[in-house]
C-alpha cells in the first residue's frame, strides 16, 4: 500500500499502461450482428482516472468488460504494458458495479477479503489489508456488520474496498454511484478522489453523468450510441484536488459543454 499522497498523475509520459487502438466488438452470430462498440482508441497512463461517459447502449460497459478480460474484442488491438501483466497470478483488475453485490451471509470484513480468498492470497495479510482499506473508505468500526445493516452508500464503500483487496493496478467501475441518491453520490465522488490519490490506482469509471465524468476524470472518453462508437477522448484541464465549488467554474462549464456537443445535445 502506497500511502504517499500522489499529485496529478502527469508524471511519466513515457509509455501508456494500457493502449487501445480501434477496438471494436459486436455481439450475435451470423446474420443478426449487433455492434456493441467501435473506434475505441485511447492511451491510459498509469495513475490516470479515465471516465467513460455516454448514453445507454453506447458500449461503455463492453469496454470495461474487455479491460477486465471478460470479453474479447473482435477488432483492433488492446495491450497492457508488458511489465503490467507480470504480477502475482496476473490478476490486476478490481471491479465495482452499480450494485454493491455484497454477499449477505458474510460480514463486511469477510466480503472485502473474498477476492483474496479466490486468489488464495495469505489470509492474515488479506485481513490486515482489509482493515486498512475499510479505514480508507470510511467504514472503520463496521467490519463485523452484515450488509443489510449498512446504507446503500456504505455498502458501495465496502464494494470499493473489496475491489482493492488484492492490490490491483487497475480499478474498473461500472456506474458505481448510479443507484445512490444525489447527495450521497456527490459525497462518494469526493471520497473516490481521495481514495484514488491515496492508493495511486489507475481507474476507469463508466457513468452516464456528464458532470460526474468531468468532475472525477483526469481524462474523459465520450461515447455515442447508434452507431456505438467513441467520439472523443480528451484530457480534462482542471486541477486536482477538485472541490464541489469547481462545478460552478467557467472551466468546468466549458468541459461539460464540450461533452454535450459531442453527444449532439445542445
Amino acid at each position, binding site marked *: 500500500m502506497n500511502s504517499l499522497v500522489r499529485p496529478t498523475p502527469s508524471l511519466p509520459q513515457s509509455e501508456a499502461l494500457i493502449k487501445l487502438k480501434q477496438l471494436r466488438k459486436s455481439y450475435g452470430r451470423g446474420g443478426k450482428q449487433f455492434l456493441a462498440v467501435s473506434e475505441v482508441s485511447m492511451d491510459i497512463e498509469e495513475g490516470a482516472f479515465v471516465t467513460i461517459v455516454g448514453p445507454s447502449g453506447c458500449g461503455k460497459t463492453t469496454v470495461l468488460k474487455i479491460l477486465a478480460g471478460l470479453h474479447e474484442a473482435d477488432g483492433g488491438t488492446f495491450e497492457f504494458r508488458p511489465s503490467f501483466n507480470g504480477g502475482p497470478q496476473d490478476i490486476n483488475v478490481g471491479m465495482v*458495479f452499480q*450494485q454493491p453485490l455484497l*454477499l*449477505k451471509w458474510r460480514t463486511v470484513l469477510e466480503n472485502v477479503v473474498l477476492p483474496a480468498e479466490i486468489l488464495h492470497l495469505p489470509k492474515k495479510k488479506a485481513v490486515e489489508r482489509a482493515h486498512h482499506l475499510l479505514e480508507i473508505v470510511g467504514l472503520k468500526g463496521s467490519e463485523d456488520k*452484515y450488509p443489510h*445493516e449498512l446504507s446503500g452508500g456504505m455498502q458501495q464503500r465496502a464494494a470499493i474496498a473489496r475491489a482493492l483487496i488484492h492490490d490491483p493496478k487497475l480499478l474498473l467501475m461500472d456506474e458505481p454511484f448510479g443507484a445512490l441518491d444525489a447527495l450521497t453520490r456527490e459525497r462518494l465522488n469526493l471520497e473516490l478522489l481521495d481514495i484514488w490519490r491515496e492508493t495511486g490506482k489507475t481507474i476507469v469509471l463508466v457513468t452516464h453523468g456528464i458532470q460526474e465524468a468531468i468532475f472525477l476524470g483526469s481524462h474523459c472518453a465520450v461515447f455515442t450510441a447508434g452507431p456505438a462508437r467513441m467520439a472523443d477522448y480528451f484530457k480534462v484541464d482542471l486541477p486536482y484536488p477538485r472541490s464541489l465549488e469547481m462545478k460552478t467554474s467557467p472551466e468546468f462549464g466549458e468541459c461539460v459543454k464540450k461533452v454535450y456537443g459531442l453527444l449532439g445535445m445542445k
Partner: protein
Amino acid sequence: MTAISAASSPVATSERSPLPWPRWLLIVGVHVALVVVWQAAVEIFKIHPFFLPSPVAMIRSLAKAEYAWFSNSIVTAQEIVGGYLASTVIGIGLALLFYWSRSLTAAAFPLFVTLNMIPKVALGPLIIMWLKYGVFANILIAFSMCIFPVLLNTLRGLREVEPDLLDLVRSLKGNRWQLFVKIQLPGSLPYIFSGLKVAAILAVAGAIVGEFLASDRGLGYLMVQAQNQLDTAAMMMAIVILTFIGVGVYLATVIVERFVTVNVRDDGL
C-alpha cells in the same frame, strides 16, 4: 448511526403485531380459544358426537387401547420422516447433478418436468402393487410427492446468481468450484429451505394416502378402523396427531434453517 436505524425501522414495523401481546402468546392464545369455543359450542348446542365430537371426547378416545395410538403414530411418523429425508437427500443431490452437467440437464430435465405433472397420489396404487403395502411403499409415496419441490427450488437457487457477481469471480480467474462453494451454494440455501418446508407438508399427505390405499398399521389404518365404527372422535384425533407430526417436521426444518443460514435471509422474509 442514522443510516442503520433508517434501514432497520421498516422491518421492525412490519414485524410488530397490532396487538400489545407478544407473538407467541397470540399464537397459543388463538388455538386455545378455538378449542374452548369448540368445546362450549358442542355442549351448549348439544351437537351429536357423530357430526362433531368435543375436544374432550377426542382426547378421551386416546384411552381406547384397540387403536394402539402410540405404535400407529410411530409407524406413520417413520413414513413421513423417511419420505421427507429421502426427498431431501435425493432432491438436493439431483439438483447438484443438474447444476454441474448442462448436457444432463438438457437431456433429463424435460422428463422431470413431465414427471412432476403426474398427480403423485395416482402413483400410490402402482407403488403398493409393486412393493407390497407397508412402511417402505408409503415412504416411497411420500417421497414421490416431496422430491419435486426440493429439486426445483434447489436448482432455482443454484442458478439464481447475479451476472455481475459471476463477472467479479471470472475477472479474478476464479474457478467454477470457488463460485459454487463461496457464492452459489450459500446463496441457494434460502431456496433449498423453502423447498424443504413445502416437502414437510407434502410428506404427511403422501404417507397418509399410502396408508388409506392399503395398510395394516399407521394412523391412516387407524382412521379406516375408526371410520368403520363411526368413531368420529378417534378419526379427528388421528388427524390432530398427524398435524402435530407435520408441524414437528416443519419446525425441525425451520430450526435447522436458522442454524445453517445465520445471515442468509431473503430480504422479503
